[in-house]
């Protein structure tokens, strides 16, 4: 009970942090344009950036102070080769550097006709790497404890207790039912996908952090990897099913079943990509929307803004708690569906009898 309350209070504090960060930015935004653009503010918060931006203070004389952590920019263009410099060189989009300019979070070359490949260590990349370092350190320390016999001949201790149920859950509820006898081969991949998504989901929920799993690039990579894993797990039967669907007339087989089944190969990983992306981005948008509501009301009248804030924060906290749940659920769904698709790919000949 006590712990539950503590968690609730913790979440509330996190939410207030978020609220705090948003306030700074939005107050600034309000001051600059004299007009609130909630969509723009929210989009800025959920998108990738070349710096960790916390807040901006505008001085009376019009000069600005940006509280940011600049991040390294790595660019490649076939015409100009590699260039490597700090994002602070752009002065928050106000200056050009090396013939490159930062506009709306995107880097373009000043000269026309020059293509640029942006391989920068962005906010998402930094956060992802931090999260993964923590994940790897944690897992290896656990593995070392196991190696020493802790948790093998004795009762598990510390983090082992936290991670073990999750690992056995992935093994017993995800891998075993879907992959039957072959689950040993896929278990490391499934565990990696699960924890990769989970740790980034959780870190993405920290106030002021980047929305890594809610970025389409992140989910595309995972989806494409899933696609290849599924494709490499297929057997003759799987392809037979696609190109020569059993038990239907020839015309239907060629004109309907072939395109539908072939499309199905691609829609499965596509669904994985979109599902994770949409779920995570939606959660962030909802929380940000509730916070932004305060400023929408505030732009009407400051009394309305203050009056609405408790309700708005309460809703944001509620969604925040749901998002913690969603962080786990989405990691599970992605892993589970990947396992299901892999299972379908090497499923044996018994399908013939069904159709």
């Amino acid at each position, binding site marked *: 009970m006590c712990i539950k309350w503590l968690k609730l209070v913790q979440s509330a504090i996190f939410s207030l942090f978020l609220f705090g960060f948003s306030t700074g930015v939005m107050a600034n935004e309000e001051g600059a344009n004299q007009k609130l653009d909630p969509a723009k503010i929210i989009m800025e918060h959920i998108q990738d950036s070349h710096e960790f931006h916390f807040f901006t203070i505008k001085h009376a004389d019009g000069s600005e102070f940006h509280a940011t952590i600049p991040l390294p920019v790595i660019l490649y263009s076939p015409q100009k080769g590699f260039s490597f410099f700090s994002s602070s060189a752009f002065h928050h989009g106000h200056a050009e550097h090396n013939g490159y300019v930062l506009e709306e979070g995107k880097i373009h070359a000043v000269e026309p006709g020059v293509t640029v490949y942006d391989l920068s260590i962005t906010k998402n990349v930094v956060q992802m790497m931090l999260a993964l370092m923590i994940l790897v350190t944690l897992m290896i320390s656990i593995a070392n404890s196991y190696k020493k016999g802790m948790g093998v001949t004795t009762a598990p201790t510390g983090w082992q207790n936290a991670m073990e149920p999750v690992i056995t859950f992935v093994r017993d509820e995800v891998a075993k039912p879907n992959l039957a006898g072959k689950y040993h081969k896929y278990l490391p991949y499934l565990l*990696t996908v699960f924890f990769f998504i989970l740790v980034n989901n959780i870190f993405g929920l920290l106030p002021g952090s980047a929305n890594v799993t809610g970025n389409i690039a992140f989910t595309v990579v995972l989806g494409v990897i899933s696609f290849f894993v599924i494709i490499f797990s297929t057997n003759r039967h799987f392809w037979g099913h696609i190109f020569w669907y059993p038990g239907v007339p020839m015309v239907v087989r060629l004109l309907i079943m072939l395109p539908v089944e072939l499309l199905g190969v691609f829609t499965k990983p596509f669904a994985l990509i979109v599902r994770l992306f949409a779920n995570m981005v939606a959660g962030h948008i909802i929380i940000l929307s509730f916070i932004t509501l305060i400023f929408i009301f505030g732009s009407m009248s400051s009394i309305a803004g203050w009056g609405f804030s408790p309700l708005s924060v309460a809703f944001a906290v509620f969604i925040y708690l749901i998002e913690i749940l969603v962080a786990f659920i989405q990691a599970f769904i992605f892993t589970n569906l990947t396992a299901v698709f892999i299972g379908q790919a090497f499923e044996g000949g018994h399908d013939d009898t069904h159709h």
Partner: protein
Amino acid sequence: MDLLLPSIGLLFWTLLAFGLVYFILRKFAWKIIIQSLIEREQGIAESLESAKKLKAEMALMKSENESLMAQAREERSQMLKEAKETKDKVISEAKEQAKLEASKIIADANAAIQTEKLAAITDVKNQIGKMVIEISEKVLRKQLDNKPEQEKYIQQMAGELQHFGN
């Protein structure tokens, strides 16, 4: 729309990160953890199995012990019974023996007594014979002195002798 266009940088870094994390964790974490969990599960299953077996063995041993005890008790009572029988037998045998010995001793004694008696009688007879001869000698001597008296004396002697002989 920007939201739906994956940026090449993040694609690249995510792919790199996933690949690295996958290979590192597979080599240094998952293999060990999965193996350890399997080992532990097997250990627990084996322990439970052996505990069950031990319990069954214990039950078997208990029943065996009980039967052994019963057998031992039976044997003990049997032995006691036998011992008693043996004792009785020994005692009765001893008694019998003793009786036999006693009767033998008595018989021997009787025989000895008889022999002694016979010897004694023979001796007495010899003595008497000697005495008769002596008396006869004395009588013969006296005869030569006094005939009637001599006869009277023989008579008397003979009577006495007869008396003595009986």
